[in-house]
């Protein structure tokens, strides 16, 4: 290309992109034309490793289905702001300003719920131009502080989810490159108290509507910070904030009547799809603002949750978090596993599950306080005197502890991924069993009866072996049962699955029984009660069509 061409005024009709210190734009159309004429039908210029992945990620430039850059109304956020997309103040009329403020709060709530449900942050919460340019809102106290708390909340949630990171479900959720999440340090002094808006009759209604929304935000942020406190210390306080959140959500719902009847302008959307209480479209949002940072994914329009559905989502999230907070952090693995299995039945979403995982596993310990070895000793029904035995340093025992941690993390993931992973770790549990058994045989010979108090290591290993066996069957059982929830089995396969379940459950009961009889007999649970708890699972199987073998 002729260098001189770069200094001539652009002859193309495309919008000029100003050159910066590092980039200069030039028109490549002539080059592409020559290349096209030269290529034959079906001929493709590519390197040898041009595989399916490369083909899939290739874009056809200027195809609106693939090219994120082509669909924008605006080239940048600043251009949108210049065009008046996000005015500050929102309106010169104070009443309208308040109404719009509430609409923005509502719409942000729906965006947040949509994000939680698995869409990109950039296209949901950060489709708000006010959030993208934090410094612009400093003259509007309400808008400014609300944006601050939204950013802080998003940051807290992203931290939880990425700390819990186990697999790709979290990847899309935590993508926040280029988005302004860190709070600015400036603090504005409190302003004089003045009425929200000018219409005296409406003042109380708007104050109430605003107050419940602000309170919800405050309590929700406190829930997040309380739950992050290590070793579950903040759970009780979190429950109080959760209760406040739920109560404020109720008030928010009730405010809809007032807001709808006093909405400014004539166009109202009273349908179930509306994203604000008033039915008005919130000002300042454009989902395509961040399409440049959302590339290389193809442009996609997201359906934002409705306002009602968003509130339902938060109610469920808070309910799930509350269940977590009221869990007494039992040091018994058996109780914990039952709790997690029960908790998962409600199909909690990612944010709730990430919190659960972080509650259970912190710093390689259960609830951040119980070492894995103590968990294993209790699970194997060994007396507490062994809690400090040296065998905890044994490489296989340490590895076993890692397997337990891994298993607990897996149990907190979504059912589909959970099942796949559980199927894979069965191998690991079998291997560790064999390794410990070999070590046991090597050190203590083939004798199966070990007298109490004689050789503590032998006794510990023997108990652990039985427990590992039992736990392996538990994992197998969960693997099989999850297949029903995930609808993997067709009715013609039920027989086969029931047969596997039957075998696994019999073995599981045998191992549990063996564990009880080998131990001191000080266990709280009898083998019969265990049998009944397994049989309790059966009714859900009986409800499907069974072909009797």
């Amino acid at each position, binding site marked *: 290309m002729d260098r001189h061409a770069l200094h001539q005024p652009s002859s193309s009709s495309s919008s000029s992109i100003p050159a910066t210190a590092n980039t200069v734009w030039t028109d490549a159309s002539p080059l592409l034309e020559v290349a096209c004429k030269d290529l034959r*039908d*079906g001929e493709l210029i590519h390197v040898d490793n041009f595989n399916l992945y490369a083909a899939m*990620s*290739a874009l056809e430039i200027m195809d609106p289905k693939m090219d994120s850059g082509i669909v924008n109304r605006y080239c940048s956020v600043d251009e949108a702001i210049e065009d008046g997309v996000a005015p500050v103040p929102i309106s010169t009329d104070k009443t309208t300003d308040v109404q719009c403020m509430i609409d923005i709060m509502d719409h942000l709530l729906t965006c947040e719920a949509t994000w939680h449900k698995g869409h990109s942050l950039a296209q949901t919460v950060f489709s708000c131009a006010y959030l993208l340019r934090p410094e612009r809102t400093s003259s509007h106290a309400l808008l400014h502080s609300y944006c601050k708390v939204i950013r802080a909340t998003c940051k807290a949630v992203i931290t939880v989810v990425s700390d819990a990171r186990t697999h790709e479900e979290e*990847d899309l959720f935590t993508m926040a490159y280029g988005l302004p999440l860190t709070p600015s340090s400036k603090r504005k002094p409190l302003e004089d108290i003045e009425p929200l808006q000018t219409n005296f009759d409406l003042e109380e209604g708007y104050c109430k509507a605003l107050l419940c929304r602000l309170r919800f935000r405050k309590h929700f942020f406190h829930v997040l910070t309380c739950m992050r406190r290590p070793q579950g210390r903040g759970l009780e306080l979190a429950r109080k904030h959760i209760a406040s959140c739920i109560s404020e959500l109720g008030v928010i719902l009730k405010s809809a009547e007032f807001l709808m009847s006093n909405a400014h302008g004539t166009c109202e959307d009273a349908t179930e799809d509306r994203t604000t209480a008033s039915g008005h479209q919130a000002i300042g949002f454009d989902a395509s603002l961040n399409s440049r940072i959302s590339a290389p994914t193809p442009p996609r329009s997201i359906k934002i949750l409705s306002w009602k559905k968003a509130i339902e989502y938060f109610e469920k999230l808070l309910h799930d978090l509350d269940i977590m907070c009221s869990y007494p952090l039992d040091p018994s693995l058996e109780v914990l596993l039952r709790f997690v299995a029960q908790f998962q039945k409600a199909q909690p979403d990612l944010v709730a599950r990430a919190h659960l995982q972080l509650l259970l596993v912190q710093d390689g310990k259960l609830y951040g306080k119980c070492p894995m070895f103590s968990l294993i000793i209790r699970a194997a029904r060994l007396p507490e005197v062994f809690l400090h035995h040296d065998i905890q340093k044994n490489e296989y025992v340490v590895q076993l502890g890692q397997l337990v941690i891994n298993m607990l993390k897996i149990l907190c993931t979504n*059912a*589909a*991924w959970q099942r*796949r992973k559980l199927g894979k770790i069965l191998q690991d549990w079998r291997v560790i069993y064999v390794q410990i058994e070999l070590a046991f045989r090597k050190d203590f010979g083939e004798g199966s009866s070990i007298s109490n108090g004689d050789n503590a290591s032998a006794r510990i290993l023997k108990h652990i072996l039985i427990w590992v066996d039992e736990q392996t069957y538990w994992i197998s059982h969960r693997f099989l049962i999850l297949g029903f929830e995930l*609808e993997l089995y067709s009715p013609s396969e039920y027989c086969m699955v029931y047969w596997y379940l039957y075998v696994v459950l019999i073995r599981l009961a045998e191992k549990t029984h063996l564990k009880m009889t080998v131990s001191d007999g000080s266990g709280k649970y009898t083998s019969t009660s265990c049998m009944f708890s397994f049989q309790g699972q059966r009714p859900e199987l009986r409800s499907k069509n069974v072909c009797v073998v």
Partner: protein
Amino acid sequence: MEQVQEKQRTEEFDASEIEYVSYGGEHHLPLIMNLVDQELSEPYSIFTYRYFVYLWPQLSFIAFHKGKCVGTVVCKMGDHRDSKFRGYIAMLVVIKPYRGRGIATELVTRSIQVMMESGCKEVTLEAEVTNEGALALYGRLGFIRAKRLFRYYLNGVDAFRLKLLFPQPEELHPFLPTMADRDDTQNHDDHSPREEYSELHRHL
């Protein structure tokens, strides 16, 4: 990838009037592309189509009715983990007026036949959990649901990984697949890297 199979208003025709043709070259490509583009919302670049039909032309078939292209199946096959030679059904489309008459089944069957003859041990594909038509079609052919993929599609819908295991002559019990066969060690992230391209999972 995507499978489209809902029943709506039908076109009158006799099954014998449908002509099934193996992919014959560049002249077939725009037919396939138009068919898939009009029925599916996901954008597939021309590179994607070419990848399949150039490397495995023998696995793609087109259905014609009186010279009009009414359906297509696009597939690939190759070595997979544990050296399992495996077939993959990438796209299956039949235009709405021609659905419910067995054209899709015929297209898929022909492709699977070639896969079997080429030495594949199994065939897989993904289908939306809500796509009852596709699930029924493949179910009838003996596919099982090996895995569920959470929020596989961009609209948030889960997918089933469907798998058809070919009976192997050297196995002692060909009629009792083990649970391990159903849920093998394959991750769907070996089709495309996870991190920034999770959205592309939809296509694979």
